[in-house]
């Protein structure tokens, strides 16, 4: 083969060369100046406006949460038979959003996808925040939240143990493990950057904080050696979790007897959906960050293009899953399952079914076009559609399946209340408040990792700068 020969001779054709991952002239020094300077700068006006909006949403949401805890789940629209509604929809939605970060930072790290380095930090932070948002819902959705700690298996004088057969308990383990591993992974990556910031900052307070957080990092070769090893190990650990968390969340549904929930396709289908939703959210936030923080040279259009390709791939997987749901309903000859599937495409909530299918399957097909993958308008349009669509997908799974199950006598329509919407708003408020705060106090780009992919950072016999 000519290309093999070309490699042997060292003359790699242009089309096989990986294009540079940054634009313009980026040196390690300029990178530090560009990224690590943010915390020392006074935030722009837009940042304050944004924070005001997200904090308002947060306060509204948490007042509604307080009202719920004081009064009872009855202030929501949940009823019999729709015992779960916005609470679990929001939970699954946020856990799903929280999938992109770890996937980008861990799985793509293991696959040596070097383009991930510029966006990994941000995506990971979003994971942590999304899982925090998700974590609120199991806690507040129980009838007696002050007893929610009973879900943890701890030795107690009552001699009552938790029920290990319950998927809800698996959830507790899956989500808390995922959260702690993601947090560790994220923090580990932050340590060298924080050390750089410690060395740069002039503010005494910041210096103290960064000193504590950098854990005595001096950049010694032994530090780097341990760091790389730990990072690799955690990446390996997190990789399994990316697949397991949403699989376990899907068991909440898949192991039940509710028609529309009881399906073997759920674990892979949920994982694909989670990556789908997570990547969309990352795209939305990335575009904003890239523009407002002048990071165009580090987060390039190529990053967004690759992200959009992943979204497109996941959209196709979702389409397959939806078709399989229909096929199972038909092929199983199970009248209950059939009825539930028909409810998705017709029935009272048929609009929600079609909204889901349109947003998740039809609209992302735009990303087949390079023009759409590299246009802010189109990618934001698709990402927003996917976010809405994925929220409604959980609505479809939970509410449509529950509202008409086995006995027609128990069927009922579900209507959310103001409080339901308020709590949903609050979760968005919390998420974006945390994103905004993160963008100001910590490096949004892993400078140490980006330095490793700067042109010339990886000496090779074929690189230009070897000459």
């Amino acid at each position, binding site marked *: 083969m000519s290309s093999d020969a070309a490699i042997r001779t060292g003359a790699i054709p242009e089309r096989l060369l990986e294009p540079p991952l940054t634009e313009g002239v980026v040196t390690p020094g300029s990178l530090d100046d560009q990224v690590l300077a943010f915390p020392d700068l006074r935030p722009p006006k837009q940042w304050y406006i944004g924070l005001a909006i997200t904090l308002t949403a947060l306060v509204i949401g948490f007042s509604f949460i307080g009202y719920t805890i004081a*009064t*009872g*789940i*009855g*202030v929501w*629209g*949940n*009823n*019999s*038979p*729709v*015992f*779960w509604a916005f609470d679990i929809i929001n939970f699954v939605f946020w856990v799903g959003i929280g999938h992109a970060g770890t996937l980008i930072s861990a799985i793509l790290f293991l696959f040596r996808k070097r383009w991930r380095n510029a966006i990994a930090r941000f995506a990971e932070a979003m994971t942590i925040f999304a899982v925090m948002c998700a974590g609120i819902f199991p806690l507040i*959705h*129980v*009838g*007696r939240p002050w*007893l*929610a700690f*009973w*879900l943890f298996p701890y030795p107690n004088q009552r001699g*009552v*143990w*938790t*029920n290990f*057969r*319950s*998927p*809800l*308990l698996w959830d*507790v383990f899956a989500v808390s493990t995922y959260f702690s591993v993601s947090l560790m992974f994220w923090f580990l990556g932050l340590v060298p950057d924080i050390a750089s910031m410690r060395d740069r900052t002039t503010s005494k307070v910041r210096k103290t904080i960064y000193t504590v957080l950098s854990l005595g990092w001096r950049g010694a070769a032994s530090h780097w050696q341990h760091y790389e090893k730990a990072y690799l190990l955690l990446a390996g650990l997190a990789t399994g979790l990316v697949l397991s968390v949403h699989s376990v969340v899907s068991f*909440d549904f898949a*192991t*039940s*007897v*509710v028609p529309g929930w009881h399906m073997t396709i759920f674990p892979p289908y949920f994982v694909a959906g989670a990556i789908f939703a997570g990547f969309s959210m990352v795209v939305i936030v990335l575009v904003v960050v890239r523009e407002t923080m002048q990071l165009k040279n580090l987060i390039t259009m190529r990053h967004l293009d690759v992200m959009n390709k992943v979204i497109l791939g996941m959209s196709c997987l979702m389409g397959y899953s939806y078709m399989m749901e229909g096929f199972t309903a038909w092929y199983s000859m199970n*009248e*209950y399952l059939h*009825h539930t599937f028909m409810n998705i495409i017709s029935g009272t909530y048929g609009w929600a079914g079609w909204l889901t299918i349109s947003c998740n399957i039809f609209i992302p097909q735009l990303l087949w076009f390079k023009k759409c993958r590299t246009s802010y308008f189109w990618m934001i349009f698709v990402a927003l559609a996917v976010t809405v669509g994925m929220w409604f997908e959980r609505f479809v799974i939970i509410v449509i399946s*529950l509202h*008409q*199950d*086995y*006995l*027609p*006598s*128990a*069927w*009922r329509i579900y209507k959310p209340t103001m409080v339901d919407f308020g709590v949903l708003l609050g979760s968005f408020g919390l998420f974006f408040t945390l994103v905004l705060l993160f963008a100001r106090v910590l490096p949004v780009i892993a400078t140490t990792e980006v330095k490793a992919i700067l042109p010339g950072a990886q000496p090779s016999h074929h690189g230009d700068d070897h000459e």
Partner: protein
Amino acid sequence: MKTQIPPSPEPPVEIPRYWRTLGEREETPEARKAAHDEFLPGAVDVADLPAPSEFSRRGFLGLMGGAAALAATVACDRKGQGTIVPYTRRPVEVIPGVANYYASARQEGRRAYSVLVKTREGRPIHITGNDEHPGFKGKTSPRTIADIMGLYDADRLRAPKAEGRPLAWAEADSRMTAALAGAKAAGKPVLLITGAVASPSRKALFADLKAALPTLEHLAWEPVRGDGAAEGARAVFGTDVEVAPRLEKAKVVLSLGADFLSGEDPEALAAFGAKRRLSEPGQATNRLWVLEGPLSITGSNADQRFPVRPSRIAAVAFALAKALQSRGLGLPAGADLSAVPAGVPQGVDIPAEAWKNLVNDLASARREALVLCGAEMSAEAHQAAHLLNAMLGSQALELRAAEPLATVKDLDAAMQGMAAGRYAAVLLWDVNPAYAFPRAQAWKDALAKVPFRAWMGLAEDETAAQCQLLLPVNHWLESWNDFGSGELFILQQPAIGALYDTRQGEDVLLAALKGLGAAVPADYHAYLKARWQKEVYPAGSPVAFERYFEVALHDGLVKDGKAAPAPVFKGATLAAAAKQALAAQGGDLELVLVPGFATHDGRYANNGWLMETPDPVTKMTWDNPLLLSVADARRLKLNDGDLATLTVDGTTLRVPVVLQPGQAKGVVTLALGYGRTTGEMAAGKGVNAFPLMALDPAAPNLRSGVQVAAAGGSKPLSRTQAHHRLDGREIVQSWSLAEYAQEARDRKKGPELVTLYPDQEFPQHKWGMVIDLAACVGCSGCMVGCQSENNVAVVGPEQVTRGREMHWIRLDSYYEGDVDNPKVVHQPMLCQHCDDAPCENVCPVNATNHSPEGLNQMVYNRCVGTRYCANNCPYKVRRFNFLEYTADKVEPESLIYNPEVTVRPRGVMEKCTFCVQRIEDGKIRAKGEDRPLQDGEITPACAVSCPSDAIVFGDLKDPNSKVSQLVKANRSFKVLEELGVKPAITYLADLKNPAIEGGQHEL
């Protein structure tokens, strides 16, 4: 420190042993004693010392310990903890923890129910039928079970009141006496309006009052008892009659709009259930024909039902009489049907084939056929029904002459008398004409013209607002009385002393009698006893009267054996009635006003249990929508929940609409008893339909020429079931007799269901239940019984609308076939106590689990409320406390709670327990008596409250138990068996015995 050892002298060296004092060395007795004592003389306990000027270590530690203990105790205090108040002097009757039972009785209209009242710590908490009663056999009506709530109604008037101020009884008595004596002296009439008089002693008291006060005019008024029935009976018998069906003797029953299976008559339900509970195809059963306008519970259980407009019912009945005449059944003397044309009357949609079958059935069953006519039907229809029974010579009914009831016409006359200033005084006792009289405003205006107006009742109502003197009376659970029903006297005795400063109504009258100078016993109890000694106590009985009366009270009844002669049928008025019946037309739309299932005539509108029990047909709670046939609704472009205006004779109401399959075209139905303006629970629930009633006593409940129009807007319906179609799901089985024969012969067995898990082990008992859908008529008695036994919360209409009712057992009804006349099946649905319960393995905290006796148990204390179990329950029988429904309950409402069942707080899941408290009670009882449990000894509340004995409970481990036998029956099936959850409840298929196809031809 204060403790000091007294100084001792120098020890002498030559003494080898140790000693402490000189006395000890010399071994004086004092010293020996001192040596034995722990402390030396002079040693003082610190605690006995006067307060130390400085803190001692001991004192400090003591106080610290105390403070720590106190802090720990205070910290352990739980919110909502009540105070336990022990009896300082325990009443002789009351043993804490042990239930007392009293046989008593209760009246509703003319009907008297013999009941057994369960009391705990002096509080009546549960009512069942009296098991000693030969007819009721331990069964009673849903409203009777629920009426315990009336005792604890927070709205009850607690002391006499006049002009808005509380008053002592002595003063109330003197005011009453003064008014009555004044009227007597002036010779002006005094009007007394009461409910139906079913008590011989009360009747005697009225007679005494009449003797002492000759100007007394008494009206016994029951607003929803059907004046048409009274008018019809008076026309053909010359007297009011009470019709008691004897269904055990009937092969063919024809209901002309009669809802005799509504649950009001437990004897009818028991007899009906017994006839339908077949164990083999081919066994004798009955056939129920129903011709009615609205779909009633009876209609939903019919073998053949035809929607017929109520205005045409009389014509149908006369046509049937004509047909029977042509089949050779003789007409009674004086009857003339020559004007009646043969065949199905015009405007009635009954196929000729069915008509022929109906006539055939009646003509061949003859004495074993029975025709019942609905109370709302016209007087002509009642005359025709009496004629039919007379022609058939029916044995299956008992006719008894009854005390006359006042009709709307009588009330109207009284009102005109009041307006004209005829009456000096009016006494209103347990009646509410200001609400239930059709012309309420005119009534109020007229009443205001009476100088003295006294009201006697439980809770202030619309009528009380018009009266000067308000006299609170005892609830029946606090009262004495007797009721006579033919050969049987039943006794009412108090199960609790009066809760408030109230008196029994009869005692108020006795006080008035005393004031008028009559010699009467001290109280009604004495009056009743005296009358019994004189009238009921058999002369020459070997038992002393006191003992006789005690035994009667213990049993709750006495068999008298004196049957009243049946009234004689006279046919003279029939020709005129037939002519009128043939001419009767309902116009475009006609309205039927029916008593509310929960409210009756409005008297139970403040009863939360009843208001929240769904109407067995419409499944509506707390409201009375206008029921339209589906065809009419389509024509008027109305849908479920749409608001409509209903106009009758210039009176317009705005009501939500419900489409009722099976309702006759051109008929709209509205329930009475709603739209009260007083009472915390009652006020503002639904609309008052009494203003739509006619003042014509022949058929006040039927109105023709009614207009219905869309009013725009809609109202969310507080309805517990909105989907009645099965869509081919095999959830409930309903077979014709032919299908039964086929199923019994070659029933397909489903595939063996396999499981990966080991089977549950049940070492001792395995509780199970069988529900016979053929016997179940859907009366909802089980729901009320369960609510009472298990402290099931009442959540209110708003929460029901949101789908959060708490009933542990519900009645599902499914329609099949033609929307204009569907087949209906009722199915009680409760926790199935599955062996492989899907709810159990999903609970993360093990709050629901399986007992070794096969119960799916719910541990409220452990429940955190994830609601996963409810999602995973295929039967959706789990109930969640979405809000705090119980904590705000204070006395008197909280007194109704059964102490053996936990009251559930918010955030907790709950569901049917198979009445585990009764199971345990039975087991403990058996163990205490050192004997094995007997079959049928343990009965959950639903089974006890089921008048037709459709629910059987027992031990499936015992192969001889009734439930084990029934599980093997050829009608048995399990709901959603294919899910492999192994429910512990087996249903027996519903049976229909249609005349045309699939039924028994030879009855």
